[in-house]
């Protein structure tokens, strides 16, 4: 909590201190100098960035890459906001699309569109448009995505087979999922409490959103220029009710206390959750599983197949003195040489179509066997609005969603509270 407060305070200071400037177009010349690149990740993920750095430096010996490593997103944002506000931003940084807006709209980023246009390594059309689209601000391509990950269902194949429950498959419905989750929720030691839950998923906005869309509802009134949540429409309310009922009626997901003592990923690892909804990021951790086999499947469907976008992109600082060198790194990292290095971590789905469709990603010899589920659902991807205050909006909405799912607060109250708590934040995001 304290760190969150800290991060927001810094962000506020940052927004107050930032000023934009006119950008310079791409220019030629020999490469050289130090490029500072800010990234975040766990120790193993950081190692993949170091491999990338080493491979790039071998290619461009005159360029020295200084990798600045943060442990997680909060740390990255604290570092970024302070360094931008303090006038010493990194040349390049990697950031999630939900957090890029606050930088892009301040004019502190150099658009990468013109750079990729003149690249002979790859073009914009070689990257998944669903990912690149998330980084278009003011009509221009500002940042370039490194990965594209959709929300999928991870499932414990052994538990399904033991209980003789049909495996999740493409196009399965929400009701089928609830039915199978109920069959898989088991009290194995007879103490009256479930020891295995059919499903592990928490009431966060980015988990609920795809089902609102799937049911024909909308998250906000206008995706480009949102002014408020539209969770009060019948379609959205129904999807929300179905989601909360996972706990309130069907009791197929763990209680809040149980989640506190064992989070969803740990529960799945332990073989105590038959299914879990997550993005690609849990794959490396699940690859350590030896006791059972697991796989992935697309999200269940209300009316139409929808999933939600998770993507991170490289953004170039407008104030950078080494734009060409930074671009050379982006070109290398996202291109056919660098993308396989990032894909090797298992944590991301490469944004370069050619590499995503290659055996490097689809058949690495490790689970999930159905890695294609990540690619097949890409056309069905939707994303949350790219406004600068979106992270704050999510954070403000979350407590009410938790109350709705875990404490049974009436749905109408939840929807109203979320609307009341977020209107002014939407307002700020528009100015």
């Amino acid at each position: 909590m304290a760190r969150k407060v800290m991060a927001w305070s810094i962000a506020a200071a940052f927004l107050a201190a930032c000023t934009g400037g006119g950008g310079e177009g791409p220019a030629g010349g020999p490469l050289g100098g130090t490029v500072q690149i800010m990234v975040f990740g766990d120790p193993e993920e950081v190692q993949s960035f170091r491999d990338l750095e080493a491979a790039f430096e071998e290619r461009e010996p005159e360029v020295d890459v200084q990798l600045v490593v943060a442990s997680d997103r909060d740390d990255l944002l604290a570092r970024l906001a302070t360094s931008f506000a303090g006038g010493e931003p990194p040349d390049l940084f990697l950031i999630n699309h939900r957090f890029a807006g606050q930088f892009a709209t301040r004019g502190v980023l150099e658009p990468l569109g013109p750079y990729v246009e003149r690249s002979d390594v790859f073009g914009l059309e070689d990257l998944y448009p669903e990912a690149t689209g998330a980084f278009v601000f003011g009509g221009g391509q500002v940042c370039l995505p490194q990965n594209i990950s959709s929300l999928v269902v991870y499932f414990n194949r052994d538990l399904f087979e033991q209980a003789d429950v049909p495996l999740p498959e493409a196009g399965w419905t929400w009701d089928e999922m609830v039915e199978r989750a109920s069959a898989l929720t088991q009290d194995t030691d007879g103490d009256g409490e479930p020891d295995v839950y059919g499903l592990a998923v928490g009431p966060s906005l980015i988990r609920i959103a795809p089902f609102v869309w799937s049911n024909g509802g909308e998250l906000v009134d206008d995706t480009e220029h949102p002014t408020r949540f539209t969770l009060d429409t019948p379609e959205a309310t129904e999807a929300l009710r179905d989601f909360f009922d996972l706990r309130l009626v069907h009791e197929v997901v763990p209680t809040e206390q149980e989640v506190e003592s064992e989070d969803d990923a740990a529960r799945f690892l332990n073989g105590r959750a038959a299914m879990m909804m997550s993005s690609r990021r849990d794959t490396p951790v699940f690859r350590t599983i030896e006791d059972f086999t697991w796989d992935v499947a697309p999200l269940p469907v209300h009316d139409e197949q929808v999933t939600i976008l998770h993507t991170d992109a490289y953004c170039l600082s407008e104030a950078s003195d080494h734009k060409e060198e930074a671009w050379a790194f982006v070109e290398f990292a996202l291109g056919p040489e660098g993308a396989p290095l990032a894909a090797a971590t298992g944590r991301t789905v490469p944004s370069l179509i050619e590499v995503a469709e290659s055996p490097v990603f689809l058949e690495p010899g490790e689970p999930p066997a159905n890695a294609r589920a990540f690619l097949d659902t890409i056309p069905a991807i939707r994303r949350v609005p790219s406004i600068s205050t979106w992270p704050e909006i999510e954070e403000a909405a979350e407590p009410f969603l938790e109350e709705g799912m875990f404490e049974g607060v009436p749905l109408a109250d939840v929807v109203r509270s979320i609307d009341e708590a977020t209107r002014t934040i939407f307002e700020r995001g528009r100015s």
Partner: protein
Amino acid sequence: MLRMSERPHERGRWRHLPALLVSLAFLLPVWFMLTGSLRVPGAAPTPGVTALPIDPSVESFRRALALVPLGRFALNSVLVVVAAVPLTVVFASWAGFAISRLSPRARGIMVAVSLVALMVPSVALLVPRFALFRTLGLTNTYVPLIAPSLLGTSPFYVLIFVWAFRRLPQDFFDAGRVAGLSWLGVWWRVAMPLVRPVAVAVGVLAFVFTWGNFLDPLIYLFDESMFTLPLGLRSLSTVGPQDAPVFLAGAVLATAPVVGAFLYAQRFFLREHRESGWLGR
């Protein structure tokens, strides 16, 4: 009154009970950290905590050191602490001594100013401080981490010294002056020996603060080879749930020096307590 003097041992025994209970509450997390770190990493995490390690192993310590160069980070932390802690004690005591020598009115103003400074949230100063150090070209050095010690690290430490010095009889200082000592001499030869437990306390507080300082290294250090322990620990905290013992092993390694410093320092409190009491009286 009579009952107490009749049964001094009885009273002595029970009066430690609340303290024992309180310390037990504080020791439990430490115990779980220790037992947790001895679990084999990579195994499925246990729901809840384990009171006793089953099949203890030091594998998680090996993994922690392999994932993150904790030894290097510890050395960096030591470097910062060795510079920052003595400087903090010297500068805070100088400031405290100077303020305690002022006229009551001026002293009141200075104490008020210190209190106001104490209330400024450090986050509010983050960006201006970063801009300052950047202009001086001192980012990615240890200077921003050590520089606050030249102001006594926190106004609180200065105030502690003000109060400690004020409690000493002022005749001591006058006698020192009469004996031909400079003010610096009075501070070092007369004042400091009399408030030694306070100096140790401030030293310990400054040590704990500097050792655990996470925000400043996060903001000012770019080069991983310069990182301090809290950043390394933070990095370890991102490992998957099956590797929780690895993170706990890192926590044990980072906590041990603090515990050691405290155990060492508490001799000073206890001894002074027996001889002349807290605050050197």
